[in-house]
């Protein structure tokens, strides 16, 4: 009996290993040809395909924009059916792909995935993405400034055509003008504001995406700018000491935070709830139009406004990609191309739909298209596109983010 018990795990391990050797050769060749063929052929191959789009599903506006604006047009114009699959976290998408790769599943269920930053890096490092497809998309070639750093790299990682830019986001602070008429303009002023208004400020506990972004602003402002972090983290010998002022700043404001910094909201959703019910006077968002759409919904007070720091705030691009084992690659290409069209990008810009910044280069659009984009009413709470664009800072690469997220637990949350 004992021997049998030992054999079972052995057999299981062997079968798992054996499964990962299989690949579908025919399908692979067919897919490869899509990377070189004419766009006409791609659209024909896409007809009648059903495309599953796996993405973070935590925002009603985004979900509605895809289901009610994008999907019907794709069906109508290209005979491609878009099926949105909501995920709790982009990390889960990567986890699932890793699992599919390790069991050798060559016909996966994901056709389009919405990723960026560390998830892109993880996907690229583990070869979970299909290939260099963006050069095939007409809208990518016509409307995108391919040399721009925020398009060519993703959180410092070269994109290599593995993913197509879908939109841009920028970090903004959200406040209630009734509680703070002149918002702080730097991290020092924020620290003063926090001490004058105890209990009115907090940020979501890391590894929350937005909380983590807030801490990166503290890093830039307390340790002397972002330029020094444009190299891999491993190359900075004295990184520990260099990060010290950031931990110090965070620990100095901690006693004046919501609930004396004993605990932090576990998610941005909780933090927004605290802001909406008036328990705190400030929140933050990596989506410049979120405040405007929350005011539209009546969740945030009418007196909600957004502000930036004089030294700028983080901006990044988010991308759409096609996994290695997508079963509808042509359909995915057509859908991604469609989502990059000026019409789709203009609709996406409106806070009524989503309020996400366009990924296109304004100069490459026709005068009518530019006019349409400028006519979008961004809402009172959203800053103008010029103001946002003149205050952008580049993102940090994923290896720093990891160090910061781990360090935060250790240096800030623990005591």
């Amino acid at each position, binding site marked *: 009996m004992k021997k049998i018990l030992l054999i079972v*795990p052995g057999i*299981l*391990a062997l079968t*798992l*290993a054996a499964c*990962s050797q299989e690949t579908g050769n025919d399908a692979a060749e067919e897919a490869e040809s899509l990377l070189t063929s004419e766009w006409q052929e791609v659209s024909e191959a896409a007809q009648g395909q059903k495309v599953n789009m796996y993405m973070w599903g935590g925002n009603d506006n985004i979900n509605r924009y895809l289901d009610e604006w994008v999907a019907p047009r794709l069906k109508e114009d290209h005979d491609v059916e878009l099926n949105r699959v909501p995920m709790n*976290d982009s*990390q889960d998408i990567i986890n699932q792909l*890793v*699992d599919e*790769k*390790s069991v050798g599943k060559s016909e996966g269920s994901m056709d389009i995935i919405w990723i960026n930053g*560390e998830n892109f890096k*993880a996907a690229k490092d*583990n070869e979970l993405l299909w290939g260099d497809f963006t050069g095939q998309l007409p809208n990518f070639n016509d409307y995108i400034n391919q040399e721009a750093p925020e398009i060519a790299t993703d959180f410092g990682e070269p994109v290599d055509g593995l993913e197509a830019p879908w939109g841009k986001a920028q970090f903004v602070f959200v406040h209630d003008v009734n509680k703070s008429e002149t918002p702080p303009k730097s991290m020092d002023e924020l620290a003063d504001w926090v001490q004058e208004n105890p*209990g009115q400020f907090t940020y979501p*506990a*890391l*590894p929350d995406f937005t909380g983590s972004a807030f801490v990166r602003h503290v890093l830039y402002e307390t340790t002397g700018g972002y330029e020094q972090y444009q190299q891999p983290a491993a190359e900075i010998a004295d990184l520990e000491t260099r990060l010290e002022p950031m931990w110090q700043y965070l620990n100095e404001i901690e006693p004046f935070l919501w*609930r004396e910094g*004993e*605990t*932090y909201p*576990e998610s941005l959703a*909780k933090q927004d*709830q*605290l802001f909406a*019910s*008036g*328990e705190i006077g400030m929140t933050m968002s990596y989506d410049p139009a979120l405040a405007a759409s929350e005011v539209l919904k009546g969740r945030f007070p009418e007196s909600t406004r957004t502000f930036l720091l004089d030294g700028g705030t983080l901006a990044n691009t988010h991308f759409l990609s096609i996994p290695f084992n997508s079963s509808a690659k042509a359909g995915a290409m057509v859908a991604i191309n469609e989502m990059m069209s000026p019409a789709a990008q203009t609709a996406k810009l409106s806070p009524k739909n989503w309020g996400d910044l366009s990924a296109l280069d304004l100069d490459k659009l026709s005068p009518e298209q530019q006019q349409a984009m400028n006519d979008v009413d961004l809402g009172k709470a959203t800053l103008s596109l010029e103001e946002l664009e003149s205050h952008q800072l580049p993102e940090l690469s994923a290896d720093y983010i*990891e160090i910061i*997220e*781990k360090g935060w*637990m250790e240096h800030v*949350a*623990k005591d």
Partner: protein
Amino acid sequence: MWQKTKPYLLLLPTIGTIVLLFFGGLFDGLLKSFGYFPAIGETRFETTAYADLFRSSEFWESLVLTLRVAALSSVIAAVLGAFIAISLFMLNKLAKTGSAQFWHRLFQLPLTIPHLVGGYIIVLLFMQSGFLSKILASAGLIDKITDFPVLVNDPFGWGIILTYAWKEAPFVSLMIYPVLSRIHRSWRDVARVFGAGSWQFIREIVLPVMLPAWTIATFVVFVFTFSAFEVPFLLGVTYPSMLPVYSYQLYTSGTLADRPEALAVNIVLAVLTILLGLVVYYFSKRWNVFKGWD
């Protein structure tokens, strides 16, 4: 032959599914916790994840918190559940069926609410800018909302305990009640003849009869609260977090290389649960609590 094997064949689909999904997942987690992870090119077996885990103070603080919250939640739920069940039982014996039915349904209501929703209801009711706090403030009973006591996201874990006690008490009573309803009416009369009051009747007859079901129900609640995620995630504090939340943080914040440690937490949870199960089983056999089943 067919007659003999038939029940087993009928059970096969269910057993197969459970073995494949549950044990398969557990086994996969076990392999990964030992660092065996072919997808990222790791095929060696090592115990570094466990060593790192047992060296970190976060893990031990998490473990203490988890045990404390699970113990308090299950004890409170057990006491409340027993109280509800016995009350319903006595009510049934005295009153007409109509009102007893109503109370039954009322106490079963929390069973229909998912834990996630239950946790969120507690948050919205009890946070300092929540429903209760605002009512008290507008009634002038407290000056400002920050005077309202901190009941959710508190370091002790009262928010989590409150949610579980409210959610699990009906479950415990549901497990005990059928056992109680097997107590014959005549027993009550016999007890009266021998001069037992209501109290003595409960102590001498009702409690011993329900003890086996009660022990098992309490243990089920303990294991559940020990390893569930959503309520502690919504109502806990950033540090220390309960073990399932700690595992989730490790799993989502790090790279793939951190996964063995996250899965090691889950394996520790599973092993502790099995050990606790054995302890409960051993003592219950020893005290002979199962004789109530006969």
